[in-house]
C-alpha cells in the first residue's frame, strides 16, 4: 500500500536525446516526483523578481529522483537544452492526473471562443523530433553558419548579463550559440537576423510554441502562440498554492506544525484531507 501510494506521486521522465543520455549515463533511471508534494516545494519563490532560469533548474533538480537511489549528475539540467527543460517543466505541471493542456482563445476573425487542446504526448513528440538534430545550419550569402541549441547554462549566463536592448541581446545570443564564428556573424546585418531566428524556431519548437488553428465557425486560419514556459510556471505555482492550502487545512484541524505535516507522506495527507472534507460535508 505504502509503496503503491508513494509511486502515485512519481511520473516518468521525458525521453532524453541519445547524445545527452550518453553524456549522463547515471541519469538513465531518473523519474520525477510530483511538484507540490513536499515541504521544499513551498520554498520556491515564483514571484516575477525571483523568476529566472536558475529557478527552473532548481525546480527540476529537486523533483528529479533516481529509481536506484543514484545522485543526480552535476550540471544535468543546466546542460539540457532549453526546449527539453521546457518539456520537463510541462511534465511536472501536468502532474499525474493531467494528460493534456487546454488553451482557450478567440478567433481573430469571428471572435468565436476556441480551445486548443495540447496533450503531453504531442508536446513530447514535437520535442523528440527536435532532439534528432543537435545543430542548426543556416546558409547566408553562400556561407554555412552552424548553431547549437541554447542550454540552461546559456540562459543562466544571459540572465546574469545586462544588455543595452533586445537587438543587441539577440546578436550576442546568436554569437554565443554559433559553433563556427566568422566575420559574418561578428557583423550581423538586420536582414540576416530573421533568417537565423526562423531556423532556430523550427529546430527548437517548444521555446516559441505556435501553431495554426482553423476556426470551426468561420474556417479562418488563426495563428496561435503561447509561451509554454510561463504557462508551466503558472501551473506549478498553482500546485504550490494547493500544497500550502492543504498544510493550512491540516494545521487548522489537527494543530500540527508545518514540520509535522510534511513528516506525513503525501498519500496519507490526502487521506486526512479527504476525511476533513467528509466531516465538513456531513
Amino acid at each position: 500500500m505504502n509503496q503503491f501510494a508513494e509511486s502515485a506521486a512519481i511520473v516518468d521522465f521525458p525521453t532524453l536525446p541519445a547524445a545527452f543520455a550518453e553524456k549522463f549515463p547515471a541519469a538513465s533511471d531518473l523519474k520525477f516526483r510530483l511538484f507540490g508534494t513536499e515541504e521544499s516545494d513551498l520554498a520556491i519563490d515564483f514571484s516575477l523578481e525571483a523568476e529566472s532560469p536558475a529557478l527552473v533548474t532548481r525546480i527540476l533538480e529537486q523533483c528529479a529522483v533516481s529509481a536506484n537511489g543514484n545522485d543526480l549528475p552535476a550540471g544535468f539540467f543546466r546542460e539540457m537544452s532549453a526546449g527539453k527543460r521546457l518539456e520537463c517543466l510541462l511534465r511536472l505541471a501536468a502532474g499525474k492526473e493531467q494528460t493534456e493542456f487546454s488553451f482557450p482563445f478567440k478567433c481573430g476573425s469571428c471572435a468565436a471562443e476556441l480551445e486548443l487542446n495540447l496533450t503531453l504526448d504531442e508536446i513530447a513528440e514535437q520535442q523528440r523530433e527536435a532532439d534528432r538534430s543537435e545543430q542548426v545550419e543556416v546558409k547566408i550569402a553562400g556561407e554555412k553558419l552552424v548553431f547549437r541549441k541554447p542550454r540552461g547554462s546559456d540562459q543562466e549566463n544571459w540572465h546574469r548579463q545586462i544588455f543595452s536592448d533586445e537587438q543587441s541581446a539577440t546578436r550576442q545570443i546568436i554569437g554565443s550559440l554559433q559553433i563556427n564564428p566568422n566575420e559574418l556573424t561578428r557583423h550581423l546585418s538586420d536582414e540576416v537576423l530573421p533568417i537565423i531566428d526562423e531556423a532556430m524556431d523550427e529546430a527548437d519548437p517548444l521555446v516559441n510554441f505556435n501553431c495554426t488553428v482553423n476556426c470551426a465557425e468561420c474556417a479562418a486560419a488563426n495563428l496561435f502562440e503561447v509561451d509554454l514556459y510561463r504557462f508551466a510556471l503558472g501551473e506549478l505555482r498553482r500546485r504550490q498554492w494547493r500544497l500550502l492550502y492543504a498544510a493550512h487545512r491540516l494545521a487548522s484541524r489537527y494543530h500540527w506544525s508545518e514540520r509535522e505535516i510534511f513528516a506525513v507522506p503525501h498519500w496519507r495527507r490526502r487521506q486526512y484531507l479527504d476525511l476533513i472534507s467528509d466531516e465538513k460535508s456531513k
Partner: protein
Amino acid sequence: MKSYFSRLAKQSRLRYGRANTNSPATAAKKAFGEFAPLHREETILTAPDLPENDAPVKEKNKLLPAEKFSPEKIPQNFDANNRIVHSASEIENEISKDNQSNAQTALVSDALSVVEKIVFTESEITGERDNSDALLNRIDFQSEISGGSEVKAAETTPRQPEYFKKTIENLETGTADKFEVQKNLLQEIYEWVNDAPAPTDDREQTNQPSLKQPGEVRAVVATAPNEEPSLVLRDAAKNAMGNSKPLEEQNYNLSIGTISIIVEEPPPIQNTTIQKTAVETAKTTTREFSRLSRHYL
C-alpha cells in the same frame, strides 16, 4: 508574432539597460558615492595557551623555578610583607601623575577597575615546588594575556631558619633521653618565639623597597581595551598612594564589573493632597530610594 530569440530572451529573463549606469550597484554609487568596504566585526576565540601547549609548559615549568626565582634575579618587587608585586607601567604613570593631591586615592581606586594587579605572597612562591610551578604558570599566563606588559620578579628574602631541627633529630635518632628532648624543645620554642617578626612595618627596618614610591609600582594592565579586570588588589594601590598601612593579608577581590545604582527622585506631590499628607510624604522621601537593596543576615 514573437520571434524565437525574443521569446528566448523573455524566458531567460534578460535585463536591459546600460550596464554601467542601470545596475543597482552603479545607481547606488551615483547617489551616495563610493561605499566604504563593509565593516566586519570578527570575534576570534582563542583558547588559553596552557591546555593547548601542555607539554611545553610543563617543560618550561621545570626550568623556570631555578631561573626566575633565584634571589639575585628578583631583588626589587618584594614588599615589606614579602609579596611580589607584578605591575605595569601604565598604572605607575597614572599614580605618579596624581600623587600630589588627595584625590589620588579615588583616582586610583577608579583606575583599579580597569587595571589588573596581582600580588602573590611569599608562601605561594617559597612553598612547595608544585605551588611555585603553578604560580609561575599564572605569572607567565598573565604576562602573555597582558600583551607584553612587564612582569618583574622581586627581591626575595632569605629562607627562614628551620626550627625544631634539634628536637626532630633527637626524636628520630632516639639517642637523647626524655629530659634532654624537653629541654631542647623548650629552647627551640624560645628561639622560635624570639624570631617572630615584629608587628611594626618591616619595610622601614629592613630597607625593603616600598610600594610608596610610584616608580616601583607595577601593575599588570590588560592591554585589550574591552577586557574586564578579573583580579584586583586594592591594598597595593593604597600603599602606592602613600597609605602607611602594611599589607598584612592577602586580599583578592574579584571584580564582577560595574553595578549601576539608579537613584530615583521622589514622586511629585500632587497639589490636591492635604497638607499633612504632604508633610509626611516629604519626610519619608528625604531618603533616597534605591533599587539595589541587599540584606545580610
